[in-house]
């Protein structure tokens, strides 16, 4: 393999890997904070892309502002979905409700949300692909390898968002409360904190991350109604590989799956996904909690 090809594939791996990481961080925050396995996450990602399309391509706002608006709109959509669906649902659960029942019902509720968002988008925007003019169409030369600048920007932006998220979760009281709630909501209530709002924030934050992921990737690929369905499977896979409840695991898992897919597609073609899946199963056999996760469940 030539160095050029290697760099090309590496950049591709980092691009998709960083998108997975953003997706899975969102999934994980929602799952641990609110105990919802969010099947609508792919649709939130898709909506993020459409919102960017709307602001950037149609209204000609600048790219950074459009991206921020993507995140913010998705946070709003997430919060409204939580209040409209999951908050209502959680009122039925009591102390004695089993975890698996909560998981089943909330996962199925998220499936309902998924169907509504998916078809709703299809109705509003139609089935055709929407191209977004890349804000940075330049191609740069690295060791005689042609790499689109946008890919590097995507990696950079993802890294930036991860750093912001880290600062939010570890340096602000709000983030500390989010982390605390996923460990023990009752102890948090006893400090005078209204946990209902914390749950809403968890869902909103997770949704915003999905929206940002969709917005960032939109200029690289075109925006289609099916983009959400395609990414959700791999996101779940990354969630399992990395381990639920571990940020480092998520990042490691995202990069690993990104590398495997990028190099796999080059050398194996379409069966790369199968290969990745089998690998994940093998990892889970030996490490049921994922690579770096806390105990399973």
């Amino acid at each position, binding site marked *: 393999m030539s160095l050029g090809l290697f760099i090309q594939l590496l950049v591709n791996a980092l691009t998709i890997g960083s998108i997975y990481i953003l997706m899975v961080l969102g999934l994980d925050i929602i799952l641990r904070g609110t105990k919802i396995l969010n099947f609508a996450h792919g649709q939130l990602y898709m909506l993020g892309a459409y919102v960017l399309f709307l602001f950037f391509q149609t209204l000609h706002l600048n790219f950074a502002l459009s991206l921020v608006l993507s995140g913010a709109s998705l946070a709003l959509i997430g919060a409204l979905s939580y209040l409209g669906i999951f908050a209502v649902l959680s009122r039925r659960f009591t102390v004695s409700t089993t975890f698996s029942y909560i998981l089943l019902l909330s996962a199925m509720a998220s499936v309902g949300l998924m169907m509504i968002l998916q078809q709703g988008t299809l109705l509003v925007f139609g089935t055709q692909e929407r191209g977004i003019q890349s804000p940075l169409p330049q191609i740069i030369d690295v060791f005689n390898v042609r790499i689109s600048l946008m890919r590097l920007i995507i990696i950079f932006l993802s890294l930036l968002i991860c750093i912001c998220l880290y600062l939010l979760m570890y340096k602000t009281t709000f983030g500390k409360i989010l982390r605390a709630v996923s460990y023990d909501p009752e102890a948090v209530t006893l400090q005078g904190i*209204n946990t209902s709002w914390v749950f809403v924030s968890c869902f909103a934050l997770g949704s915003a991350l999905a929206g940002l992921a969709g917005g960032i990737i939109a200029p690289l690929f075109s925006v289609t109604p099916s983009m959400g369905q395609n990414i959700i499977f791999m996101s779940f896979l990354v969630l399992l590989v990395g381990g639920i409840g571990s940020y480092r695991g998520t990042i490691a898992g995202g990069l690993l799956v990104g590398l495997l897919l990028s190099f796999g597609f080059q050398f194996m073609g379409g069966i790369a996904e199968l290969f990745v899946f089998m690998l994940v199963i093998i990892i889970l056999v030996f490490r049921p909690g994922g690579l770096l996760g806390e105990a399973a469940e």
Partner: protein
Amino acid sequence: MFLEVKDLIVHYGKAEVIKGLSLKVEEKEIVTIIGANGAGKTTTLRTISGLKTPSRGEVWFCGGKISGLKAHKIVRLGISHVPEGRKILAPLSVMENLEIGAYLRKDKKEAVAGFKNIFDHFPILNERRKQIAGSLSGGEQQMLAIARALLNQPKLIMMDEPSTGLSPLVVEQMGLIITDINSRGISIVLVEQNARMALNLAQRAYVLEAGKCVLEGEASAMANDQRVKSAYLGG
């Protein structure tokens, strides 16, 4: 009346665990609720702090009815609950635990002063501030839980079995901490299995048996009461 519990009845599922309990706490007083396991002590505290809704009966605090309010609202009124098993946030650092405890203090300066105050009283927590709370020893975890409750600036602290699982030396230390907190004008409801320590600290005591109060009165008088012993050891 500072805190008053009137004819409380509480169910856990089908089981009636509190069967008509009434009790009162005056300002600046230490009151202890003692009794064997399963007598309903923990449930009483959980009901007062709003974690559990009573089937019947009322709880009044500083002239307002608080039963039926959500737990976080009750904390804001000035009742801090140090729950059974400490319930510290194990994956977070000691300092982060304290910061969450100081959530109600909106003023930054005030919060910093609060931390300083805490570290004056619990120097060990200052030493361990960067450490993960789950790695503390039992006694240190208990101190953290109490410190966290103090940061809410409560008028009343309810402590559920602060001596559980601690060695005798640490239990004694805990006793000193409780007296110290009380000397700052904070009322304390102390739920304990370690009756002698509790009766030693408290001014008044309630003895619970099977969800009912079987004995109440001056703590000092109760320390040698044969009935207390029988409530534990079956006489």
